[in-house]
Protein backbone atom coordinates (compact mmCIF):
# COMPACT_ATOMS: atom_id res chain seq x y z
CA UNK A 1 0.00 0.00 0.00
CA UNK A 2 1.52 3.32 -0.92
CA UNK A 3 0.89 5.72 1.89
CA UNK A 4 -0.10 9.05 0.39
CA UNK A 5 1.09 10.92 3.45
CA UNK A 6 4.06 12.49 1.76
CA UNK A 7 1.88 13.74 -1.07
CA UNK A 8 -0.45 15.23 1.50
CA UNK A 9 2.30 17.33 3.02
CA UNK A 10 3.32 18.61 -0.33
CA UNK A 11 -0.23 19.79 -0.99
CA UNK A 12 -0.49 21.38 2.39
CA UNK A 13 2.25 23.75 1.34
CA UNK A 14 0.26 25.17 -1.52
CA UNK A 15 -3.14 25.14 0.18
CA UNK A 16 -4.26 25.92 3.66
CA UNK A 17 -4.10 22.96 6.06
CA UNK A 18 -7.38 21.14 6.27
CA UNK A 19 -9.55 19.28 8.66
CA UNK A 20 -10.32 16.52 6.15
CA UNK A 21 -8.60 13.39 7.35
CA UNK A 22 -6.32 11.49 5.12
CA UNK A 23 -7.85 8.20 4.14
CA UNK A 24 -6.25 5.00 3.14
CA UNK A 25 -8.00 1.85 2.31
CA UNK A 26 -7.22 0.12 5.59
CA UNK A 27 -10.09 -1.53 7.35
CA UNK A 28 -10.04 0.83 10.32
CA UNK A 29 -9.46 3.85 8.09
CA UNK A 30 -12.55 3.66 5.93
CA UNK A 31 -14.10 7.12 6.26
CA UNK A 32 -17.03 7.36 8.66
CA UNK A 33 -18.05 10.99 8.26
CA UNK A 34 -21.72 11.55 8.88
CA UNK A 35 -23.11 11.71 5.34
CA UNK A 36 -26.66 11.98 4.07
CA UNK A 37 -26.94 8.19 4.07
CA UNK A 38 -26.51 8.02 7.81
CA UNK A 39 -29.74 9.98 8.27
CA UNK A 40 -31.75 7.10 6.93
CA UNK A 41 -29.55 4.64 8.75
CA UNK A 42 -28.17 3.34 5.50
CA UNK A 43 -24.55 2.32 5.23
CA UNK A 44 -22.54 2.03 2.14
CA UNK A 45 -20.29 -0.94 1.60
CA UNK A 46 -16.61 -0.12 1.06
CA UNK A 47 -13.82 -2.48 0.13
CA UNK A 48 -10.73 -2.31 2.33
CA UNK A 49 -7.83 -4.49 3.44
CA UNK A 50 -7.50 -5.93 6.93
CA UNK A 51 -4.33 -6.30 9.03
CA UNK A 52 -3.22 -9.30 6.98
CA UNK A 53 -3.66 -7.54 3.67
CA UNK A 54 -6.83 -9.52 2.81
CA UNK A 55 -9.71 -7.72 1.21
CA UNK A 56 -12.90 -7.39 3.19
CA UNK A 57 -15.96 -5.15 3.24
CA UNK A 58 -16.64 -2.41 5.76
CA UNK A 59 -19.86 -0.41 6.09
CA UNK A 60 -19.21 3.31 5.84
CA UNK A 61 -21.36 6.16 7.11
CA UNK A 62 -20.10 8.50 4.43
CA UNK A 63 -17.09 10.52 3.44
CA UNK A 64 -16.84 14.28 3.73
CA UNK A 65 -15.32 14.57 0.26
CA UNK A 66 -18.43 13.01 -1.26
CA UNK A 67 -20.80 15.02 0.87
CA UNK A 68 -19.11 18.21 -0.33
CA UNK A 69 -19.45 17.15 -3.96
CA UNK A 70 -23.08 16.18 -3.46
CA UNK A 71 -23.86 19.43 -1.65
CA UNK A 72 -22.32 21.41 -4.47
CA UNK A 73 -24.70 19.73 -6.88
CA UNK A 74 -27.70 20.25 -4.58
CA UNK A 75 -26.80 23.93 -4.17
CA UNK A 76 -26.83 24.30 -7.93
CA UNK A 77 -30.31 22.77 -8.04
CA UNK A 78 -31.48 25.10 -5.26
CA UNK A 79 -30.10 28.07 -7.17
CA UNK A 80 -31.95 27.03 -10.31
CA UNK A 81 -35.18 26.55 -8.37
CA UNK A 82 -34.86 29.98 -6.75
CA UNK A 83 -34.08 31.68 -10.06
CA UNK A 84 -37.03 29.99 -11.78
CA UNK A 85 -39.33 30.86 -8.91
CA UNK A 86 -38.55 34.57 -9.15
CA UNK A 87 -39.00 34.39 -12.93
CA UNK A 88 -42.44 32.84 -12.45
CA UNK A 89 -43.42 35.49 -9.90
CA UNK A 90 -42.17 38.18 -12.30
CA UNK A 91 -44.47 36.74 -14.95
CA UNK A 92 -41.72 35.62 -17.29
CA UNK A 93 -42.31 31.89 -16.99
CA UNK A 94 -45.25 29.61 -16.22
CA UNK A 95 -45.39 27.48 -13.05
CA UNK A 96 -44.57 24.43 -15.16
CA UNK A 97 -40.96 25.65 -15.33
CA UNK A 98 -40.83 25.97 -11.55
CA UNK A 99 -42.23 22.51 -10.86
CA UNK A 100 -39.91 21.03 -13.46
CA UNK A 101 -36.89 22.40 -11.61
CA UNK A 102 -38.37 21.31 -8.30
CA UNK A 103 -38.52 17.76 -9.61
CA UNK A 104 -34.89 17.97 -10.78
CA UNK A 105 -35.97 17.56 -14.40
CA UNK A 106 -34.98 19.21 -17.64
CA UNK A 107 -37.14 19.80 -20.71
CA UNK A 108 -36.46 16.53 -22.59
CA UNK A 109 -37.11 14.53 -19.43
CA UNK A 110 -40.33 16.37 -18.60
CA UNK A 111 -41.42 15.99 -22.22
CA UNK A 112 -40.99 12.22 -22.11
CA UNK A 113 -42.86 11.97 -18.79
CA UNK A 114 -45.90 13.97 -19.94
CA UNK A 115 -45.78 12.56 -23.46
CA UNK A 116 -45.77 15.96 -25.13
CA UNK A 117 -43.05 16.99 -27.57
CA UNK A 118 -40.39 19.18 -25.99
CA UNK A 119 -41.10 22.00 -28.45
CA UNK A 120 -44.61 22.25 -27.04
CA UNK A 121 -43.40 21.83 -23.47
CA UNK A 122 -41.14 24.80 -24.04
CA UNK A 123 -44.10 26.79 -25.38
CA UNK A 124 -46.07 25.93 -22.26
CA UNK A 125 -43.40 27.76 -20.26
CA UNK A 126 -44.87 30.98 -21.67
CA UNK A 127 -47.32 32.37 -19.06
CA UNK A 128 -49.90 33.49 -21.65
CA UNK A 129 -49.94 30.11 -23.38
CA UNK A 130 -50.10 28.41 -20.02
CA UNK A 131 -53.30 30.34 -19.25
CA UNK A 132 -54.91 28.86 -22.35
CA UNK A 133 -54.02 25.23 -21.61
CA UNK A 134 -57.01 22.92 -21.32
CA UNK A 135 -57.78 20.86 -18.26
CA UNK A 136 -56.55 17.63 -19.84
CA UNK A 137 -53.07 18.97 -20.53
CA UNK A 138 -52.84 20.56 -17.11
CA UNK A 139 -53.87 17.22 -15.62
CA UNK A 140 -50.96 15.51 -17.42
CA UNK A 141 -48.44 17.96 -16.00
CA UNK A 142 -49.94 17.84 -12.51
CA UNK A 143 -49.82 14.03 -12.49
CA UNK A 144 -46.15 13.99 -13.43
CA UNK A 145 -45.33 16.48 -10.66
CA UNK A 146 -47.50 14.59 -8.18
CA UNK A 147 -49.64 17.65 -7.38
CA UNK A 148 -53.22 18.77 -8.04
CA UNK A 149 -54.25 20.91 -11.01
CA UNK A 150 -55.28 23.66 -8.58
CA UNK A 151 -51.80 23.72 -7.10
CA UNK A 152 -50.25 23.90 -10.56
CA UNK A 153 -52.40 26.84 -11.64
CA UNK A 154 -52.45 28.72 -8.36
CA UNK A 155 -48.93 30.00 -8.80
CA UNK A 156 -45.84 29.35 -6.73
CA UNK A 157 -45.43 30.11 -3.10
Amino acid at each position, binding site marked *: MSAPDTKGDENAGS*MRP*LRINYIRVKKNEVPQDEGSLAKKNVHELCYAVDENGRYTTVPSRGWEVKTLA*LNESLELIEERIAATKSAVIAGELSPIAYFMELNRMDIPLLASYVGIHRWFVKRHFHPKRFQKLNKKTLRKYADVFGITVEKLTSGVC
Partner: protein
Amino acid sequence: MDINFEHQQSAHCENGVASNLLRHRGMILSEPMVFGIGSGLFFVYLPFIKVNFAPGFSYRPMPGKIFRKLAKRLGIGVKHQRFSSPEKAKAVLDEKLKQGIPVGLQVGVYHLTYFPDEYRFHFNAHNLVVYGKEADEYLVSDPVMDYTTRLTEEELQRVRFAKGALPPKGHLYYLERLPTDYDLERAIKKGIRQTCNDMLAPVPIVGVRAMKWVAANIRKWPKTIGIKKTNHYLGQLVRMQEEIGTGGGGFRFIYAAFLQEAGTLLTNPALIQRSEEMTAIGDAWRDFALDISRIYKNRKSGSDVYEKLSDKLLSLAQREKEFFMRLKKDV
Protein backbone atom coordinates in the same frame (compact mmCIF):
# COMPACT_ATOMS: atom_id res chain seq x y z
CA MET B 1 -45.71 -16.59 -2.54
CA ASP B 2 -42.84 -16.10 -0.24
CA ILE B 3 -39.40 -16.95 -1.52
CA ASN B 4 -36.66 -17.65 0.95
CA PHE B 5 -34.24 -15.12 -0.44
CA GLU B 6 -31.01 -14.21 1.27
CA HIS B 7 -30.27 -10.51 1.04
CA GLN B 8 -26.62 -9.60 1.03
CA GLN B 9 -25.45 -6.03 0.76
CA SER B 10 -22.96 -5.12 -1.93
CA ALA B 11 -21.16 -2.01 -3.06
CA HIS B 12 -22.57 -1.93 -6.56
CA CYS B 13 -26.15 -2.75 -7.52
CA GLU B 14 -25.52 -4.76 -10.66
CA ASN B 15 -22.85 -7.04 -9.16
CA GLY B 16 -24.98 -7.38 -6.06
CA VAL B 17 -28.09 -8.46 -7.94
CA ALA B 18 -26.09 -10.95 -9.99
CA SER B 19 -24.31 -12.33 -6.95
CA ASN B 20 -27.53 -12.58 -4.90
CA LEU B 21 -29.54 -14.22 -7.69
CA LEU B 22 -26.78 -16.78 -8.23
CA ARG B 23 -26.44 -17.53 -4.53
CA HIS B 24 -30.17 -18.18 -4.36
CA ARG B 25 -29.63 -21.00 -6.85
CA GLY B 26 -26.60 -22.31 -4.99
CA MET B 27 -23.86 -20.83 -7.16
CA ILE B 28 -21.53 -18.86 -4.90
CA LEU B 29 -19.70 -16.01 -6.58
CA SER B 30 -18.52 -13.01 -4.57
CA GLU B 31 -19.23 -9.46 -5.70
CA PRO B 32 -15.62 -8.81 -6.78
CA MET B 33 -15.68 -12.07 -8.81
CA VAL B 34 -18.84 -11.00 -10.62
CA PHE B 35 -17.31 -7.61 -11.24
CA GLY B 36 -13.99 -8.98 -12.50
CA ILE B 37 -15.34 -11.72 -14.76
CA GLY B 38 -17.90 -9.28 -16.15
CA SER B 39 -15.07 -6.82 -16.95
CA GLY B 40 -16.59 -4.11 -14.78
CA LEU B 41 -13.61 -1.79 -14.54
CA PHE B 42 -13.79 1.00 -17.06
CA PHE B 43 -13.41 4.68 -17.71
CA VAL B 44 -15.38 6.66 -20.22
CA TYR B 45 -15.64 10.36 -20.91
CA LEU B 46 -18.61 11.68 -22.86
CA PRO B 47 -18.05 15.43 -23.25
CA PHE B 48 -20.96 15.80 -25.69
CA ILE B 49 -23.55 14.29 -23.35
CA LYS B 50 -24.64 16.46 -20.46
CA VAL B 51 -25.78 14.67 -17.33
CA ASN B 52 -27.05 16.91 -14.56
CA PHE B 53 -25.55 19.96 -16.35
CA ALA B 54 -22.07 18.46 -16.51
CA PRO B 55 -20.35 16.14 -19.01
CA GLY B 56 -20.79 12.42 -18.59
CA PHE B 57 -18.03 10.52 -16.83
CA SER B 58 -18.31 6.90 -15.90
CA TYR B 59 -16.05 4.45 -14.15
CA ARG B 60 -18.03 1.45 -15.37
CA PRO B 61 -19.38 0.12 -18.67
CA MET B 62 -22.96 0.49 -19.88
CA PRO B 63 -25.51 -0.76 -17.36
CA GLY B 64 -26.34 -4.43 -17.81
CA LYS B 65 -23.03 -5.22 -19.50
CA ILE B 66 -21.39 -6.74 -16.43
CA PHE B 67 -24.13 -9.30 -15.81
CA ARG B 68 -24.45 -10.16 -19.51
CA LYS B 69 -20.72 -10.77 -19.87
CA LEU B 70 -20.59 -12.81 -16.68
CA ALA B 71 -23.50 -14.95 -17.88
CA LYS B 72 -21.90 -15.48 -21.26
CA ARG B 73 -18.50 -16.40 -19.83
CA LEU B 74 -19.88 -18.93 -17.35
CA GLY B 75 -22.70 -20.26 -19.51
CA ILE B 76 -25.51 -18.98 -17.29
CA GLY B 77 -28.87 -18.69 -19.01
CA VAL B 78 -30.51 -15.37 -18.16
CA LYS B 79 -33.86 -14.37 -19.58
CA HIS B 80 -34.32 -10.64 -20.17
CA GLN B 81 -37.65 -9.03 -20.96
CA ARG B 82 -38.77 -5.48 -21.69
CA PHE B 83 -42.33 -4.27 -22.04
CA SER B 84 -44.27 -1.56 -23.75
CA SER B 85 -47.27 -2.06 -21.50
CA PRO B 86 -46.96 -1.57 -17.73
CA GLU B 87 -49.86 -3.99 -17.12
CA LYS B 88 -48.11 -6.75 -19.01
CA ALA B 89 -44.87 -6.02 -17.14
CA LYS B 90 -46.67 -6.37 -13.82
CA ALA B 91 -48.43 -9.57 -14.86
CA VAL B 92 -45.17 -11.25 -15.89
CA LEU B 93 -43.47 -10.20 -12.65
CA ASP B 94 -46.35 -11.54 -10.54
CA GLU B 95 -46.37 -14.79 -12.45
CA LYS B 96 -42.63 -15.35 -11.96
CA LEU B 97 -42.96 -14.64 -8.24
CA LYS B 98 -45.81 -17.14 -8.08
CA GLN B 99 -43.48 -19.73 -9.60
CA GLY B 100 -41.01 -18.99 -6.81
CA ILE B 101 -38.45 -17.24 -8.99
CA PRO B 102 -36.77 -14.09 -7.62
CA VAL B 103 -36.67 -11.46 -10.35
CA GLY B 104 -34.07 -8.78 -11.08
CA LEU B 105 -35.40 -5.40 -12.19
CA GLN B 106 -33.87 -2.33 -13.76
CA VAL B 107 -35.40 0.76 -12.18
CA GLY B 108 -35.13 4.54 -12.01
CA VAL B 109 -33.72 5.93 -8.80
CA TYR B 110 -35.74 9.15 -8.56
CA HIS B 111 -38.96 7.63 -7.27
CA LEU B 112 -37.41 5.05 -4.95
CA THR B 113 -39.06 6.04 -1.70
CA TYR B 114 -36.52 4.40 0.60
CA PHE B 115 -33.55 6.38 -0.78
CA PRO B 116 -32.39 9.52 1.03
CA ASP B 117 -33.56 12.69 -0.76
CA GLU B 118 -30.02 13.69 -1.65
CA TYR B 119 -29.59 10.60 -3.79
CA ARG B 120 -32.79 10.96 -5.73
CA PHE B 121 -31.60 11.88 -9.20
CA HIS B 122 -33.09 10.88 -12.51
CA PHE B 123 -30.81 7.94 -13.03
CA ASN B 124 -32.35 4.90 -14.65
CA ALA B 125 -29.78 2.15 -14.37
CA HIS B 126 -30.29 0.96 -10.83
CA ASN B 127 -30.92 -2.74 -10.18
CA LEU B 128 -32.78 -4.57 -7.46
CA VAL B 129 -34.39 -7.94 -6.80
CA VAL B 130 -38.05 -8.52 -6.05
CA TYR B 131 -38.45 -11.76 -4.13
CA GLY B 132 -42.05 -11.81 -3.01
CA LYS B 133 -45.36 -10.08 -2.64
CA GLU B 134 -47.53 -9.56 0.41
CA ALA B 135 -50.99 -8.07 -0.20
CA ASP B 136 -50.16 -5.27 -2.65
CA GLU B 137 -46.60 -4.76 -1.47
CA TYR B 138 -43.52 -6.17 -3.16
CA LEU B 139 -40.63 -7.43 -1.05
CA VAL B 140 -37.53 -5.75 -2.37
CA SER B 141 -33.87 -6.66 -1.92
CA ASP B 142 -31.89 -3.63 -3.04
CA PRO B 143 -28.24 -4.68 -2.87
CA VAL B 144 -26.91 -1.26 -1.90
CA MET B 145 -29.16 -1.15 1.17
CA ASP B 146 -28.30 -2.71 4.54
CA TYR B 147 -31.74 -4.23 4.82
CA THR B 148 -34.63 -5.40 2.62
CA THR B 149 -37.42 -2.96 1.88
CA ARG B 150 -40.92 -2.87 0.43
CA LEU B 151 -42.57 -1.00 -2.40
CA THR B 152 -46.27 -0.78 -3.20
CA GLU B 153 -47.53 -1.88 -6.61
CA GLU B 154 -47.89 1.72 -7.69
CA GLU B 155 -44.41 2.71 -6.50
CA LEU B 156 -42.81 -0.23 -8.25
CA GLN B 157 -44.65 0.48 -11.51
CA ARG B 158 -43.45 4.03 -11.35
CA VAL B 159 -39.75 3.16 -10.97
CA ARG B 160 -39.98 0.39 -13.57
CA PHE B 161 -41.34 2.82 -16.12
CA ALA B 162 -39.16 5.80 -15.30
CA LYS B 163 -38.38 8.03 -18.28
CA GLY B 164 -35.26 9.78 -19.48
CA ALA B 165 -31.87 8.44 -20.55
CA LEU B 166 -31.70 4.61 -20.63
CA PRO B 167 -35.38 4.09 -19.74
CA PRO B 168 -35.88 0.68 -18.07
CA LYS B 169 -39.18 -0.03 -19.87
CA GLY B 170 -40.05 -2.55 -17.21
CA HIS B 171 -36.84 -4.49 -17.89
CA LEU B 172 -36.84 -7.69 -15.83
CA TYR B 173 -34.49 -10.65 -15.80
CA TYR B 174 -34.21 -13.98 -14.06
CA LEU B 175 -31.99 -17.06 -14.17
CA GLU B 176 -33.21 -19.78 -16.50
CA ARG B 177 -30.52 -22.37 -16.25
CA LEU B 178 -27.22 -22.77 -14.49
CA PRO B 179 -24.23 -24.47 -16.07
CA THR B 180 -23.54 -27.99 -14.80
CA ASP B 181 -19.86 -27.31 -14.88
CA TYR B 182 -17.92 -24.24 -15.85
CA ASP B 183 -14.33 -23.19 -16.31
CA LEU B 184 -13.77 -20.41 -13.80
CA GLU B 185 -10.12 -20.00 -14.75
CA ARG B 186 -10.95 -19.36 -18.38
CA ALA B 187 -13.68 -16.92 -17.46
CA ILE B 188 -11.39 -14.99 -15.10
CA LYS B 189 -8.68 -14.73 -17.74
CA LYS B 190 -11.16 -13.63 -20.35
CA GLY B 191 -12.53 -10.98 -18.01
CA ILE B 192 -9.08 -9.64 -17.19
CA ARG B 193 -7.99 -9.61 -20.80
CA GLN B 194 -11.01 -7.63 -21.85
CA THR B 195 -10.53 -5.09 -19.08
CA CYS B 196 -6.93 -4.59 -20.20
CA ASN B 197 -8.03 -4.11 -23.79
CA ASP B 198 -10.79 -1.69 -22.78
CA MET B 199 -8.52 0.42 -20.64
CA LEU B 200 -5.78 0.52 -23.28
CA ALA B 201 -8.21 1.01 -26.17
CA PRO B 202 -6.97 3.33 -28.90
CA VAL B 203 -10.07 5.54 -28.70
CA PRO B 204 -10.02 8.96 -27.07
CA ILE B 205 -13.21 8.56 -25.02
CA VAL B 206 -12.40 5.21 -23.39
CA GLY B 207 -9.87 4.02 -20.82
CA VAL B 208 -6.51 5.60 -20.19
CA ARG B 209 -6.80 7.87 -23.23
CA ALA B 210 -10.06 9.29 -21.87
CA MET B 211 -8.40 10.11 -18.54
CA LYS B 212 -5.72 12.01 -20.43
CA TRP B 213 -8.40 13.91 -22.31
CA VAL B 214 -10.15 14.86 -19.09
CA ALA B 215 -6.80 15.95 -17.65
CA ALA B 216 -6.19 18.20 -20.66
CA ASN B 217 -9.67 19.68 -20.29
CA ILE B 218 -9.24 20.38 -16.58
CA ARG B 219 -6.34 22.61 -17.60
CA LYS B 220 -8.54 24.46 -20.12
CA TRP B 221 -11.86 24.70 -18.28
CA PRO B 222 -11.09 27.59 -15.89
CA LYS B 223 -10.31 29.81 -18.90
CA THR B 224 -13.04 28.63 -21.24
CA ILE B 225 -16.04 28.04 -18.96
CA GLY B 226 -15.10 29.80 -15.73
CA ILE B 227 -14.33 28.63 -12.22
CA LYS B 228 -17.89 27.91 -11.12
CA LYS B 229 -18.67 25.55 -13.96
CA THR B 230 -15.26 23.91 -13.69
CA ASN B 231 -15.92 23.15 -10.05
CA HIS B 232 -19.30 21.72 -10.91
CA TYR B 233 -17.76 19.46 -13.56
CA LEU B 234 -15.12 18.30 -11.10
CA GLY B 235 -17.87 17.62 -8.56
CA GLN B 236 -19.54 15.39 -11.10
CA LEU B 237 -16.26 13.51 -11.51
CA VAL B 238 -16.01 12.98 -7.75
CA ARG B 239 -19.62 11.84 -7.50
CA MET B 240 -19.21 9.31 -10.27
CA GLN B 241 -16.01 8.06 -8.69
CA GLU B 242 -17.01 7.83 -5.07
CA GLU B 243 -20.78 7.74 -4.91
CA ILE B 244 -22.65 4.85 -3.50
CA GLY B 245 -22.08 1.90 -5.78
CA THR B 246 -18.40 2.18 -6.55
CA GLY B 247 -17.00 0.65 -3.37
CA GLY B 248 -14.61 3.62 -3.30
CA GLY B 249 -11.92 4.89 -5.62
CA GLY B 250 -13.95 4.48 -8.80
CA PHE B 251 -14.31 0.67 -8.44
CA ARG B 252 -10.52 0.27 -8.16
CA PHE B 253 -10.77 -1.34 -4.72
CA ILE B 254 -13.37 -3.86 -5.85
CA TYR B 255 -11.10 -4.72 -8.73
CA ALA B 256 -8.13 -5.12 -6.40
CA ALA B 257 -10.26 -7.48 -4.29
CA PHE B 258 -11.07 -9.44 -7.45
CA LEU B 259 -7.39 -9.73 -8.42
CA GLN B 260 -6.57 -10.97 -4.94
CA GLU B 261 -9.32 -13.58 -5.02
CA ALA B 262 -8.39 -14.64 -8.55
CA GLY B 263 -4.70 -14.83 -7.63
CA THR B 264 -5.47 -17.10 -4.69
CA LEU B 265 -7.85 -19.25 -6.72
CA LEU B 266 -5.49 -19.74 -9.65
CA THR B 267 -2.39 -19.75 -7.41
CA ASN B 268 -0.94 -16.98 -9.50
CA PRO B 269 1.28 -14.78 -7.29
CA ALA B 270 1.58 -12.19 -10.06
CA LEU B 271 -2.12 -11.40 -9.72
CA ILE B 272 -1.76 -10.90 -5.97
CA GLN B 273 1.08 -8.52 -6.68
CA ARG B 274 -1.18 -6.66 -9.17
CA SER B 275 -3.89 -6.51 -6.54
CA GLU B 276 -1.56 -4.57 -4.26
CA GLU B 277 -0.64 -2.23 -7.07
CA MET B 278 -4.32 -1.67 -7.88
CA THR B 279 -4.99 -0.83 -4.23
CA ALA B 280 -2.28 1.82 -4.43
CA ILE B 281 -3.87 3.21 -7.60
CA GLY B 282 -7.25 3.29 -5.83
CA ASP B 283 -5.62 5.26 -3.01
CA ALA B 284 -4.31 7.72 -5.56
CA TRP B 285 -7.83 8.14 -6.99
CA ARG B 286 -9.17 8.89 -3.53
CA ASP B 287 -6.34 11.35 -3.14
CA PHE B 288 -7.45 13.02 -6.35
CA ALA B 289 -11.04 13.30 -5.07
CA LEU B 290 -9.73 14.78 -1.84
CA ASP B 291 -7.82 17.45 -3.75
CA ILE B 292 -10.99 18.37 -5.65
CA SER B 293 -12.93 18.70 -2.41
CA ARG B 294 -10.23 21.04 -1.12
CA ILE B 295 -11.13 23.45 -3.89
CA TYR B 296 -14.71 23.61 -2.59
CA LYS B 297 -13.66 23.81 0.96
CA ASN B 298 -11.14 26.61 0.59
CA ARG B 299 -13.06 28.31 -2.18
CA LYS B 300 -9.59 28.68 -3.49
CA SER B 301 -9.12 29.59 -7.12
CA GLY B 302 -6.10 30.36 -9.22
CA SER B 303 -5.07 28.33 -12.19
CA ASP B 304 -2.21 26.52 -10.45
CA VAL B 305 -4.77 24.48 -8.48
CA TYR B 306 -6.26 23.16 -11.69
CA GLU B 307 -2.82 22.64 -13.23
CA LYS B 308 -1.94 20.43 -10.28
CA LEU B 309 -5.18 18.46 -10.55
CA SER B 310 -4.56 17.94 -14.21
CA ASP B 311 -1.03 16.71 -13.55
CA LYS B 312 -2.35 14.33 -10.95
CA LEU B 313 -4.89 12.83 -13.34
CA LEU B 314 -2.24 12.53 -16.03
CA SER B 315 0.06 10.64 -13.70
CA LEU B 316 -2.87 8.38 -12.74
CA ALA B 317 -3.49 7.68 -16.41
CA GLN B 318 0.17 6.84 -16.89
CA ARG B 319 0.17 4.54 -13.86
CA GLU B 320 -2.92 2.70 -15.04
CA LYS B 321 -1.48 2.38 -18.53
CA GLU B 322 1.64 0.70 -17.21
CA PHE B 323 -0.47 -1.37 -14.82
CA PHE B 324 -2.76 -2.80 -17.49
CA MET B 325 0.15 -3.51 -19.81
CA ARG B 326 1.73 -5.59 -17.04
CA LEU B 327 -1.55 -7.25 -16.14
CA LYS B 328 -2.16 -8.27 -19.73
CA LYS B 329 1.08 -10.23 -19.69
CA ASP B 330 0.14 -12.03 -16.49
CA VAL B 331 -2.86 -13.91 -17.88
